């Protein structure tokens, strides 16, 4: 199981108890890999995780940055009105940076903060972005937004 799949599963059940009311917004900062090629898929996967937490369908995305810039910054707006701001950054090993994840999940009655350094405590974690259909669709939408400079609707392709 990839780290982001673990992350999604770790909170899904808890959210059914509504610890912060209805989740309405997410801020996510992810530094998981030195590979610039992972930036867009990581942001796409996190947008899919946020959608699962919101219980929402695929969002519209608007992206800034790009692989060449070393970061991707995504605004995702979901059909139910929820919002996620996601930043995926490349790790700079030269600067001594370690994998890190910081989340602020905002509910209509409170907030949840999450901070982790995946792999820092001898856990073996797969930091590559997962390849589910939602993640893939959102990665395509993010890439399209980066190319066009405009917001793009996330859509699952049916292969035909």
């Amino acid at each position: 199981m990839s780290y982001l799949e673990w992350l999604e599963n770790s909170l899904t059940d808890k959210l059914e108890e509504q610890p912060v009311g209805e989740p309405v917004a997410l801020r996510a900062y992810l530094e998981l890999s030195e590979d610039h090629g992972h930036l867009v898929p990581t942001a796409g996967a996190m947008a899919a995780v946020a959608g699962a937490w919101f219980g929402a369908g695929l969002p519209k995305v608007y992206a800034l940055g790009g692989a060449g810039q070393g970061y991707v910054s995504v605004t995702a707006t979901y059909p139910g009105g929820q919002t996620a701001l996601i930043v995926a950054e490349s790790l700079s090993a030269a600067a001594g940076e370690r994998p890190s994840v910081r989340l602020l999940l905002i509910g209509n009655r409170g907030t949840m903060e999450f901070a982790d350094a995946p792999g820092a405590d001898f856990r073996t974690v797969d930091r590559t972005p997962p390849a589910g259909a939602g993640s893939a669709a959102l990665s395509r939408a993010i890439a399209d937004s980066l190319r066009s400079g405009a917001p793009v609707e996330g859509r699952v392709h049916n292969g035909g």
Partner: protein
Amino acid sequence: MASPPFGVLLVTGGMTHQENYGAGFLADPRATVVGLTDESDVDERRDRLNRELADQFGIPFLPDIREALARSDVHLVSVCSEFERRTRVSQLCAEAGKHLYVDKPMVTNMAEADKLVATARRRGLRGQMFTQVGAPYARRLKGIVDSGALGEIKSIQCDLMFAKGFTGGAPLGAPRREHDPPRRFTFPDAKREIWTTAVYSLTLIRWLLGGPRFRSVYATSANYFFEEHYKRDVEDFGTLALTLDNGVTASLIAGRIGWHSHRSSGPNFTRIIGSNRSFLLDAHSPRFEISSDRKWAPPAKDPIDPMGFWSSTMERGNAQPKPFWHEPPTAPGRSDQALFLDCLEQDKEPEVTLDDAAQASEAMLAAYRSAATGQVVPLPLPR
């Protein structure tokens, strides 16, 4: 170079930020607050609030703003008039040749902003809008950026939300429909939270970067928390994604998210991505985290100010600070009013000028257009 004492005229009084700014000027030995004034045709409530604050400060209430502005012992004005009147009042003060200390945001209309900035420039006036750039966390960020340790700055993210208000009253389940232009800005029981909160982050971002101008805005607005905002049809939460003319990008969250959403005054994170490395500053760090049997409850909901906007309401409700964190100061703090007096005394430009204030308003007006249309809005806006 001018020398103190500087005569300060307060324009508009109670249940505005004048409660804080006036107190800041009164506390500074370089300032003499000569009185409080306002436009003569304000409504009964505003007139009463003006007189009450003048009484509280122990300063004269001067009922005719034009006469007050004609006084030779008035060198600067502190303008906290309602958003819809703020530019007009500021323009009057600038035409009278008074330096301007203005509440945020400064303007609701860009043509009026251009006129005000031009008048101040022509008259050789200093002007400053209240922001958080003087706060210790902002000074720490500026030091880090200017040190070059992060390398070339590529992107800045700011998450600033205020933990006030009683949540749970806004219906959820559908995207908010935004209006362009916004129909109204001032309400007794709600504030447009992009308008009143994003302004801090927008000015901080440009200040950290040395003043590049915004080139595009993509924004969302939402009603997630408050019945008051929902009834007034204004947002309590928003996001902006921006590009600047030096190639840097930015994103920000601005909102008011409820008394119980945070163990202090609200989330305040700044993430700076540089070519060498990234840096995240939590404005509430360093801190001691306290677990104890001390309980905390928000002040009772005030019927006149249910969101707890104003210092006077908090005092009336005997609001208690949250006991969960102790945040020791990391740098000596100076009031924003003291920073403006420094500029007058030393004849130097404020760190957030009237032009900077206009830039922030323009980005927020573009944000409302973007949230209404779902599209990226290029800047500058057409006049």
